Structure formats: C-alpha cells, structure tokens
C-alpha cells in the first residue's frame, strides 16, 4: 500500500537526521558499539552525589536495596534497567521528591557535595533549588512562557524585572529554545509543541542555576527529531551541570551518557563508564539487558 511505503520513508528520513545530529549509529551489537560514543568524556571523575547503602520503602514494600554509587560532577550519568526496577525511585530520592508520597521511609544516606540531603539543617526547598528536575511528561504551568521560566525565581522572591529578563534569555538560550519563542514570551506555554514544552521545562529547571539536573525519561513522549534536539542539549548542558538521566532507551544512554548505572529489581547491578559497560559488561544480567535479550 502506498501509505505504508510513505511511512517507511519518513522513518528512514528521521533516522538519517538523528545520525547527522549525533553522528553515530545506534549500537546493534558489541562489534559495532564503539562508534556510538563520540562524545564520551574520559576526564577523571569527581564525585558530587554519593549514595551510601541507600534503601527505600514504599510502605512495607522495599523498592531499593543497598544502593551505593558516586555520580561524577559535570558529567552525564544514565540510569538504565527494565521497568519497575527503581530508576525513578532513586532519581526522585536525590531531590526528595518522594517525600510527597505518604508512608515512605529510607535507610542509608545520599550526600550532595558532602552534605546529607536528610540533614535537618537543610531545607528541602533549598535542596530542590540546587537539584532541578525534568519529568517524563512535560508539565509546563498554565502561564506564559516567560512566567514559566522565571517561576523558580519568583517563588524565591526575585521580582526585579531586569534580572528576570536576563534569566529568561539565558535559560532559553541554554535550552536552545530562545530563537523559537523570543517573539512570543508572553503567550501561553501550553501553545508550544511537545518538544518545545520539554525544552521549556529544562529552561525552567536551569533558571534556578542548580548544580544537578535530574531527568526522568525526558524524551519518552517525544518524536525522534525532538529527541535528537534534547540529546544535543544534554551534551551542551553538561559543561555547567551534573546531569542524571533515566532512560530505558539503550541507544540513548550510549549516545548521551558518560557513566551508566544498570538497575535490576531494586538493586544496582553494574556501574561503570558507559563505553566500557556497553562494550564489555562484567555481569551476565547487564549483557542480556543491553543486547536486548530481556527488558
């Protein structure tokens, strides 16, 4: 059928475009894989976020078991693993987003720059300002584009127009959205396309100038072109931010991350440089997962 052909063509076309952007093919086998890490950062790691024997419970049900890992500064760390393995749970623990759920408890500790996130001296609001978050489903506020970006500053009490204007321009430029929206900052954010909304959410998160940027499957609701744009953006952003990204797309993890952590059933199975992990996984489970044998 002609329409079927047309569809195939379209998919092929977008694939090429991704290729031109990322300059790499998705790894299909171990032999091909080393072409897929053009941007891997091999500079020495300086741990910023450290989890130590971290356990997490939803009521009585334990979701994380004894997680210990060091997330390096100004690099991209990817969390991968099958659905329900606890990727979101550990990510949302870092900015204490899980506190909102009733009946949760934890054991062990997570530190950022040496300070425990559960330190009674530390305000959770301050923590969330230092640790920005981008969600799977883009969630712009029903406000103008401008107000969306400055939201974090406004709630922190910043109202000077000049400062806000400056932050809006900077953040939107950093999130590669400025050229597309600079003429309609006062229009509703809800009129943007899905990919633009997600980049707006990134702009909103970085407007607070956080140290860490958490991303929970930021591209899973986006089309390939928008995904490619976000991936390119992540590469740009790691110069200034420590990024932790959850993804269940292996190729994406390979394309964007420097380090990868593989979780399975609430446990950290393997944590290594991405390239090393994808080329020679040390654990059988990891190999099975990244070669697509389950998950």
């Amino acid at each position, binding site marked *: 059928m002609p329409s079927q052909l047309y569809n195939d063509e379209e998919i092929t076309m977008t694939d090429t475009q991704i290729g031109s952007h990322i300059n790499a093919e998705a790894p299909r086998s171990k032999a091909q894989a080393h072409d897929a890490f053009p941007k891997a950062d091999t500079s020495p790691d300086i741990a910023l976020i450290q989890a130590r024997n971290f356990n997490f419970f939803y009521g009585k049900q334990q979701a994380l078991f004894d997680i210990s890992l060091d997330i390096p500064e100004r690099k991209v760390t990817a969390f991968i693993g099958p659905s329900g393995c606890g990727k979101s749970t550990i990510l949302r623990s870092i*900015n204490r*987003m899980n506190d*909102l759920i009733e009946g949760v408890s934890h054991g062990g500790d997570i530190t950022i720059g040496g300070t425990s996130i559960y330190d009674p001296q530390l305000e959770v*609001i*301050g923590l*969330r*300002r230092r640790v*920005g*978050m981008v*969600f799977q*489903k*883009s*969630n*712009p*506020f*029903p*406000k103008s584009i401008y107000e969306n970006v400055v*939201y*974090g500053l*406004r*709630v*922190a009490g910043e109202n000077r127009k000049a400062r806000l204007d400056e932050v809006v321009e900077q953040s939107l430029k950093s999130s590669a959205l400025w050229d597309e929206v600079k003429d309609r900052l006062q229009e*509703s954010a*809800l*009129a943007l396309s*899905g990919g633009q*909304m997600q980049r707006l*959410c990134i702009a*909103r*998160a970085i407007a*607070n100038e956080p140290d860490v940027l958490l991303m929970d499957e930021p591209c899973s*609701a986006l089309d390939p072109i928008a995904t490619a744009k976000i991936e390119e953006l992540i590469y740009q952003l790691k110069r200034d931010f420590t990024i932790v990204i959850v993804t269940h797309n292996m190729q994406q993890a390979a394309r964007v991350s420097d380090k990868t952590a593989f979780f399975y059933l609430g446990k950290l199975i393997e944590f290594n440089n991405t390239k090393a992990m994808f080329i020679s996984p040390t654990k059988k489970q990891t190999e099975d997962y990244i070669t697509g044998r389950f998950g």
Partner: protein
Amino acid sequence: MPILEKKPINPHPAFRPADPRAAVKKRSTYGEPLVWLTSVGLSAGLLMVVALLAVVFVNGLTVFWPKPVAAVTLSPNAKDSVGGAKSFAGTVIKHQKKITHAAVIPGQKSSDAPYEWQFYIGNKDLYGLGYKYIDNADIVGMSRPKDIIVIERLEYGNAIGRAVSLVEDDGSVVAAEHASFGNRFSAKVRTANERRAEIKVIEKSKIGRVNARMRELTLQSQELEKQVKGLPKHRQNDPELSHERKSIEHEERGLQEEYDQLAAKARALREVQNASTLKYRLLSGQEKDLPIGQVVSFYYPNQLSLVQKIGHFFHSFWRFLAEEPREANTEGGIFPAIFGTFVMTLMMSLAVTPFGVIAAIYLREYAKQGIWVRMVRIAVNNLAGVPSIVFGVFGLGFFVYFVGGTMDKIFFNSALPTPTFGTGGILWAALTLALMTVPVVIVATEESLAAVPRGVREGSLACGASKWQTIRRVVLPAAAPGIMTGFILAMARGAGEVAPLMMVGVVKLAPTLPLDTVVPFVHLERKFMHLGFHIYDLGFQSPDSEAAKPMVFATTLVLILLILALNLTAVRVRQNLRRKYALSAV
C-alpha cells in the same frame, strides 16, 4: 468471455436459520430498551422544564400586552350588576363553562351547561373589585367602542371609561372631542410624571440625607450628655463641652432649616400636581374627576395599531422593571425587589466562594486523608440536604441575635434599644444563604482541585516552591474554572431561595434600598425586598389575589431572567478562565 455457471446459493450453516420461522422473528440487541428508557427520562424532564418556562413566559409577558376593552350591556332583568349599573367596560380574561356546585343532571348534554365570562373592570374606587364574573345569559350586547380610555392611576389601579374633558389650572376646559385634547392631556401627564420624579428626589434623597445626619447628631448629643453625667461636678460646665454642645445644636438648627425648606418645596410641587383635573365618564353614565397628579399613563386600547401595541408592551415592561411597587405591591413595578435580589445574591456569592474554597483546600490539600476527613466530607454533603428553613432559623439565632446583638452592644450602644444590626438585614441574609450554599462550593472546588494533574504540582515543587506557593500559583489557577462552577451552582441555588430569607431580613416593602446616595452608601443592616419573597407575598398574602396573579407571573419571569443573566455572566467568566488556564491535552 465464458459465462459463469450460476451456482445455487448455499450459505454457511451459521448464517442459515435453523427454523424458518425464527428468521421472521427480529433480533433485538440487548441494552436497547435501556437506551430508550434513558431518552424517555430525559425527554420527560425536559418537557416539564420547557412547559414550566412556557407557562411563565407566556403568562408573564402577556401581562404587558395591551388587550382590547369591551363595552358590555347586561339585560335589564339580570341579577348581576356592576356598581349598580347594567353596563360597563372590561377586558375579557376568561370565557369558561360555569363552575357550579349543583349536581350534574343526568341526560343533560355538557354543551348546555351555562357559560360565564371573567372581566377585568378596573375602577376599583367605584366598583370595589377589579375583576368580575358575569353569566353568559345576562349579557345582551358586547362591542368595542373606539373612544374607551384606560387610565393608569397611582391609586385604585386603572380607571376605564370615556374621557369627557380636561379642566386646566386656569379654569379653561378642553372637551374630549376637541382635536387638541389628546396632545394636551399627554403633555399634562408627562409634566406630572416629571414633577413626581422631582418630588421623589427631594423626599427620598435630599430629605433622607438630612434625616440621616439629624439622627447622627441626636446620637452624638446623647453620647455627650452621658459623658457629662460621668464627669465630676466641677468639670460639667467645662467650656469645651458647652462649645461642643453648641456646635451640635447649631448644626441641628441648620439642618432643621434645610428640612423645612425642602419640605415646603415638595409641598408646593404637590399642590401644582393636582391643579388640573380630568373628567371622565363610566359606561353607566356616572362622571368622575381625576386630578392629573394621580395619572401615571393612559391609552385608548381599541385604537392601538400593532406598532403602538408593541411600543406599549415594551414601555410597560420597562416601567415594571424600573418603578417601585404601589397598592400593596399589586400595581407599579418591582425595582426594589430586583435590586435587593441582585445585591443579596452577589453578596452571598462573594461571601460563600472564599469560604468554600478555603475549606476545600484544607480538606483536599492539607488534611490527612482518613476516616476523619471522610466523615467531614459526608457531613458537608449532607448539609446540602438540610431544609433551608433550618438555615433561616440558624441565621436568625446566630447572625441576627448573637452576632448582630453583640455588634449593637459594642458599636451602636447609643441607638439601643432600637436595633441596628440586631435585626434582620441584607448582610445577615447573604451570610445565611452563604452558609446554606457552602457545601456546593466545597464539593465543586474539591473536585476541581483533585483534577489538577500531579505533574504540575511536582513541577512546581521541583522548582523550589513551597506547598502553599504551589497551591496559590499553580493549583488554584488551574482549578479556577471548577471553582467558578461551584460559584454558579451556589448562586443559582441561593438566588431562588425564599424560606430562610423570611427570618433574616426580607420584607414586603422596604422604604429604602441597601445602596443609595446617603453616606456611607452601603447599608448592610437594612432590610430589603426580594423577588422570590415578592412572588410568595403577591401569590399568597395579597388582599386581591386576582389583581396579583399577573404580577406573580411577571415577577417570576423577571426572577428567572435575572438568575439567567447572573449565570450567563459567570459562565462567560468561566470560559475566559478556561481559555487562560486550560491544561493542554498533553
């Protein structure tokens, strides 16, 4: 081309009816009868609503349509007479089979049953009654003379008869047959109406303002005397005190003077009002003088063209909306009731919304969801089922006697024992209804809060907003259209409510409006009129129920239109909010 051999049709066994008779029987899909039932239910409901609205609209609007007036002659030996005479003019209201209490005689055909007519005959000052039933058998003649005039008066309703002459203030007489009669008469009526408006301004606003200031001064001087009594003897003749006393007296004297002047002016205007008179004759021949000051308007019902009728219709509808009631509310307009309903409903809605929204925010966002919150929710929902009169009693006991009484003791002590807030008033009425409608707002708000997606809340919290900031800046705007729905429902419920109002401040006739030009302009303690109560009062408390009937329909119509207008405005606001805050379908 080879001709295809025709194969005998041999359908698959599944499509073949096992029994040829079964094929005739139609299959009905399960569930279809239920669909049918639901549509019947909906149509029955709609039909009832439409019928009710139609009754109200038709009866309410025809009140203002000018109807022809018949000149009726009764047979000389008729038992009935109108004001002792055998001829009269009247508008036909009904023509029906006579309602008798006599047993139906078997064999008598129903068409033989006697008929009777109901007429609106006006001239209540002479006839005593505005409406009359006449037996068909008694009527010997009915015609529509062109020269019949209907005069709307300030008192005793309409006069119906024939104009004879206009006696002007200088004594000159213009006969009704004279060409200039019509113009002169309307000019006179117009100036009389203008003068009446002027008198009203003087008596209501100007004298009202003087009186209000006088009352204040009286209270002030009472307060002063009380103070003086409390002082030791040697300080009672303090020059400062006597100075104050003097200044009060001085102002009082000034006000008294002003009052005298205004009263004299009003009196003079009143006298001029009645300088000319209209002489008119009933169909029986009896003549009567009517001072022009008494005339509100007049028309010749049997001469009107369609355009004139339409003009008359809109004019009298407008006057019904804009004028004050007369003659125990059976004549004139209903403006104070419209105004009272509007102000009270608005106050109620403005009071109930923040109250309900705050309660709902606590219940949904802060309270720990558990058995306790569930019980509160059930209690709130059941509150909506409490008879409204119970709320009225509660309002009387709590707002009027307790809160109002306490306020009087603290702030208006000098006016006691005359209560200021310790008696029914528009504020207490609005608060009582707010209490009654608060469950509606709470339920609607809770639902709309629950519908705000989790993602938006988390997004806000992740930006470093506190819980309250999240609610105020993100959740409430997103929930605003739902809150508006609660507002609309509360308004609709409150605007049509009557029973509780009767206990907390509604009156049959309020001399003043809750808002006017006398300082402080808003008088929350005042009693007020209300359309719903007006309907009840006209329909069930009126001395002349026949005269009140058209007013009941017209007032109901206005109440429905008012609620509709309020609702449509709120719906518009809600649409704007939706457009502004709608969470997209991502």
